[in-house]
């Protein structure tokens, strides 16, 4: 399982735990990181740049340190 997919899972757990609007939050994260979360699969290859962007977006939008 890639690191990217792991980030996606943890983000979805956070959204569910905080009972947030999933489409809105995922949309913002996708736009901020430049990657559609729906396209991140266990087999998706890790891209360090995308990983950093997604972590920064998660911190900013969800206050989630990944």
């Amino acid at each position, binding site marked *: 399982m890639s690191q990217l997919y792991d980030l996606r899972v943890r983000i979805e757990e956070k959204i569910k735990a905080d009972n947030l609007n*999933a*489409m*809105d*939050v*995922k*949309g*913002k*994260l*996708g*736009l901020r990181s430049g990657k*559609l*979360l*729906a*396209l991140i*699969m266990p087999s*998706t290859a890790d891209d360090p740049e995308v990983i950093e962007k997604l972590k920064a977006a998660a911190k900013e939008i969800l206050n989630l340190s990944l």
Partner: protein
Amino acid sequence: MKWHSIRTKVLAALLACLLLGVGGILALMHYSCERNSRIMANESVSGAEKLFGILEAREISKMKAVSEVLLADPEVRDAFVAKDRTRLNGLAAALYPELKKEGITNWMFHTPEPNMAVFLRVHNPGKFDDHLNRYIDAEVARTHGIVTGNELAKAGFAARVIRPFHDSKGGVTGYVEFGEELGQFMHAMKKRTGDDYALLLSKQFVDRQFWADSSAVWKRRDNWNDHAGFVVADKTTDSERIIQFDGELTSVPEDGKVLERYRSGNAVFVRGIFPIHDAAGKAVGAMFVVRDISSFYLAMKRTERTLILVTVAALAIGIAVVLTLLTSLIFRRLDHIIGVATRVVGGDYESEIQVSSDDEVGQFERLFEQFRRVFLDVLTHVPELQERR
């Protein structure tokens, strides 16, 4: 507040317009107030000068008529021809109180040239045989006609009429003179206009002893030493402010001059000056005029305040209307597009952008909706997504 947002920039621009508008109105009102005050001050000076001229002409005309009637009185004529001072004074003294009521304060008989002395002062019978040596004395002796004008004598600065007195054979037996104190004119002018006046005489044209004598005759304080360059002949107010003047009285322009606008308590005044000429045409003094412009000035200030309030209210309403229009026509619709775009990226493929108008933003909405559909079509062909479905 987001400083980079269009809403903030538009609001800042509108507030700048508001400030400019209020500033412009303030400047305009200030200019208008100053200009109208100046016009009013100029009018008060020129009006006072005209009124003074009218009164002077009217009174001189009256004194001419009185002298005409006197010349036709054989008893007066005979007494003057006979140089019978007691009889002449008896006849004149009976008339003098009536003339005085009409403003004629000075009445003199003069002997003919070359001696030309005062034969009788009806207003001051105990003083006679003195020589006045004034311009009008020389002029009437030269022309043997009526001479009029303002002239200083021991009884004060007055508008005067002097004319030859003829005996039954037509020869000049002397001269008769009537005069009205110019101070009286000021009080008449004040009654008509409500303005205050002060009559000043340049010391270079007034003899010190002359002034002391006239002060004694009129039982007024000798004010010679009150001011350096001039003496105050009369004034209609107790205020000293009216006669504050640093220049030379003889250099006052012919059309008069506005000196200042000033406040005293809640009242606002304008002060001006115009020259007074003697019979020879020399500017020997000046008259100050003070007009109360409080009602005009306060009305202008009220208008200024009202205009500012109206402008602020109008611009505030304008700002509210513009911001409301911007919000409903642009910002809210852009927020909608951003929201839909975000949700689509988040996986909500059902949200659509509603095209609400055919305006510029509407065209963008339509374009974005078309773009959204293309984007969804692309997504349907992504293998990862197909697997999850």
